[in-house]
């Protein structure tokens, strides 16, 4: 699946997007964030704060949302538009 990062999450991970292939045991957004943390120091740093929000296929989701069937998952800080 495709993963996108925005704002300081993007800066900390060091890339704007990538294709990932998490194991089948990773079922929810929260589990995916936990799995990403294990990919390296930059990921651990990016995901250390619990404030990160997620969207699946352009819709805001909660941490317990299932990632099954997701084409695009985005991680970002709380929004500051307007």
């Amino acid at each position: 699946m495709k993963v996108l990062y925005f704002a300081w999450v993007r800066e900390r991970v060091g890339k704007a997007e990538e294709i990932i292939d998490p194991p089948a045991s990773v079922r929810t957004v929260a589990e995916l964030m936990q799995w990403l943390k294990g990919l390296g120091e930059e990921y651990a740093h990016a995901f250390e704060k619990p404030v990160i929000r997620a969207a699946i296929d352009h819709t805001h989701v909660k941490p317990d949302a299932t990632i099954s069937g997701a084409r695009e998952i985005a991680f970002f800080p709380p929004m500051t538009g307007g």
Partner: protein
Amino acid sequence: MTVPVTIRLQPDDFDVSREIAALTAGRTDIGAVVSFSGICRGSEGPEAITALTLEHYPGMAEAEIRRHVDQAITRWPLTGVTVIHRYGRVVPGDNIVLVLTASAHREAAFLGAEFLMDYLKANAPFWKSEERAQGASSWVDTHHRDDEAVTRWDKS
């Protein structure tokens, strides 16, 4: 009648009077247009700001704004809506965002514009990075008041 809606995300500046003229051209059913402009400030508290960089999530940002505009049209008798949000680097004095709401009477136009701005601040996928005089930059934190502003619309 379908309510005319214009949503644009762009790096370029916009002209408020031109956008109002475009919204009202040829219409005799509009009695009120509320216009809100968000403008880049030159300071954040005691700190001088030299520029803001706005990052957005292409695709999702348009979809989120459209969804909120549709909600506003469902809640109030609006007869036209324009939302323009810039991305990229802006400097103090520059426009950032424009919300126009049209209606037969002013109340719907005021409420619709306020509702849309509250949602844009807290839910639309945009992020601001501030540049300061010393060249340092940092990401703007969410204001709790913005989140609270959104929740008041859930109750009413």
